[in-house]
């Protein structure tokens, strides 16, 4: 199944045929549920009348489905347009609408020490939402790993041959090796200056991840495998997110109980300022980079590192 999914995401369909031809070897430990699945499917599909019935229904529902989909889409669009036409201008009916936003802009620098108001908002004022948001990424990484990574039971693993071996292409390799350090540096800059200028952990981490993807695409996975093994990636994610959750938990605890926050805010504008925002940006950046590279590696070949 996994190979099938992965083959669907690749552009060439050569992997798909091979997969469909190979028979899955039964695995003793998972026999129980599988036999139930197979029984069910056989009882349905082996019946020729059932097959005809299924075909007939599919044709009938295909038309019905399209009609209903078009009608409901048009209805939804109409309702939404009508609603937007009747929406008041921002803050027009409600003079208190900018109470929150104005405080962020006016007092953000003083209260958080961050020059970048967006960073102050997402990592200090509304830090709990952002904590959740970075765990959304983590959840996505875990789900993809569960679905796509080869496990102990995938004995006859099958890795589709790449369309052409990119690492043997000289132009690609040279340009890749020239580009990667620049992109890497740019990503690090964006992460480290997240509290001073536009940017931060999420955007910088994406750039870092992109540079890793370019590196593994141009120089081959053997290069990145030397640094990024599955275990190291896990340790990195654990360190970043563990630090994030614990430090933010501490800040919430201190803030809610009205204690003195021991983390210094520093001089606004200096690189070491804005309290926790800089380390949190680094943590988020690491997680985002790991997630992006992990996605690429899993979709491309079903493993991270050598295994």
């Amino acid at each position, binding site marked *: 199944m996994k190979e099938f999914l992965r083959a669907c995401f690749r552009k060439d369909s050569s992997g798909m045929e091979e997969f469909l031809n190979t028979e899955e070897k039964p695995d003793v430990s998972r026999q129980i549920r599988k036999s139930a699945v197979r029984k069910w499917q056989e009882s349905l599909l082996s019946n020729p009348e059932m097959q005809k019935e299924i075909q007939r229904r599919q044709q009938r529902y295909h038309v019905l489905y399209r009609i209903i989909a078009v009608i409901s889409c048009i209805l939804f669009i109409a309702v939404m347009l009508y609603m937007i036409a009747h929406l008041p201008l921002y803050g027009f009916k409600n003079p208190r609408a900018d109470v929150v936003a104005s405080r962020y802009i006016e007092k953000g620098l003083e209260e958080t020490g961050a020059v970048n108001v967006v960073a102050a908002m997402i990592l200090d004022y509304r830090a709990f939402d952002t904590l959740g948001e970075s765990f959304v990424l983590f959840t996505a990484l*875990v789900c993809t790993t569960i679905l796509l990574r080869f496990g102990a039971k995938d004995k006859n693993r099958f890795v589709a041959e790449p369309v052409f071996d990119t690492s043997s292409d000289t132009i690609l390799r040279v340009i890749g090796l020239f580009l990667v350090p620049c992109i890497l540096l740019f990503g690090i800059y964006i992460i480290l200056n997240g509290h001073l200028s536009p940017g931060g952990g999420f955007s910088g981490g994406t750039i870092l991840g992109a540079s890793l993807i370019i590196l593994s695409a141009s120089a081959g996975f053997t290069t990145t495998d030397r640094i990024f093994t599955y275990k190291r990636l896990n340790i990195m994610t654990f360190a970043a997110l563990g630090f994030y959750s614990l430090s933010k938990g501490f800040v919430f605890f201190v803030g809610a109980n009205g204690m003195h926050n021991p983390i210094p805010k520093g001089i606004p504008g200096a690189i070491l300022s804005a309290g926790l925002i800089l380390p949190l940006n680094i943590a988020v950046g690491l997680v985002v980079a790991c997630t992006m590279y992990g996605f690429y590696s899993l979709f491309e070949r079903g493993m991270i590192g050598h295994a």
Partner: protein
Amino acid sequence: MDFICNLPLFMIIASLFSSVLCLLLKKKAAYTVCGILMVFLTTADAIVLYYTYAHSTFTYPMGEFPAPWGNEIRAGVLECLILLVFMIVLICSIPAGYRYLRWEVDETKHNLYCALLNLSAAAVCALVFTNDIFTGYVFLEILTLASCGLMVATETGRIVLAGVRYMIMNLLGSSLFLLGVVLLYGMTGHLLMVPLHESLAEISTDPSMMLTVTLVVGVLTIGLAIKSGLFPFYFWMPDTYGWSTPTTAAFMSSVVSKAYIFLLIKVYWRVIGIDLLERMPLHLIVLALGIAGVIFGSVSAIRSNDVNRMVAYSSAAQIGYIFMSLGIGGRAGYIAAIFHLLGHSVTKSLLFLVTPRLEEVADNSMIFKDLQGSALRDRTSGLLFTICSLSMTGIPLFAGFASKFLILLAAWDSSSYGVFTAVLIALAVSTALNALYFLRTVIRIYSHPENEDPENAEPVRRHHSLGYLIPAWTLVAVNVFLGLFPAITAGLIDSGFGMLL
């Protein structure tokens, strides 16, 4: 501020941290961490429940910035009670389904499964405690993703397809909810529930704004209804619940979809305000969809020919009950909805945990024909299945009866004869249908197979591990408690709603 007020924060942070910790652990250690976390969450929640009952509700700022500027969580009797039942279900379904987890989840992926369990526990805690509508959205997203991951951990072909369908439907629901949140923010400039409510009350004094507000509430309702599986959006349910591993099925049917419904109730009460809601025609639509869900879910359950799909479709019917009592409106309707939510959580999770045991003694088939006589080979599971069926059908002594009774009382209180008649007919018809498909199954599992050779009859299997028996009977005990003393729980829920305002 008392130290106990910090417990909700500790619960959320501990579950988030332990989820990343699980990445580095082996199978056994990961399950240990997961178990310790669940015990901690249950105990802490019980303490907070006692505290809020004895004192009063409290809000807890997340960080040093007060309400309209920073995030906030809030704990009251209602939140703690619901979370307590969710945690009991979760803590029971892990050991009771472990027998199948061991087979169905890949050896190297158990720690990831535990990480997802911890993440979804964190998400459920945050969803229940949140006092900020956008925090609700963020953790709703975590819960959706994590439950999808828990589902596909089985990795058989069909569950992956079901997972894709689940993902599409749920993302549609999430995006509608997000749209509603964005529109609310655009109108009021607030995201926290209390200031949002005040601004909204001010805006809606203008009659020309009423339609817009109604549409926004409609979008929020449809989004969460899709995610929890109300008619006509319940077609992702049978494959999702029927083919995932029992622990996941129990967790998803009794915690995940119910957490969305609770978020909806919280939005209704704390954001929209119950007075404003009464002025909208929305509750009639919810009532109609709920009734349709009850009838169509039951009919689909009767038409299905394997037991897993039947149980899953009956979930759709029960979600219909909950929305039906939301549609009745009034305080009594909401109390009945919460009561049914709790009772159904306890019953349905046990059903999903028991059914695979019956299938196991029936040569691993889930088709009704093969299940004949399976309760004779596995007496304990047969008894548990019968208890659940009786509760689902609504026999006195069990939670199902109490909640149906409460729904009927709420309909009587609503002082609208149309609503009362509709609810009465829906309840009567659906109870008959419930009895038809559940008791049919019970009779089938207790009757001897037709061509059974008495000498070759399979030996009776009596030995179950305590890891299955203790959780199963705990769930039965909670069920019977809800059924025998509905006044206690309903009183708690009532005082919870009093604090919710």
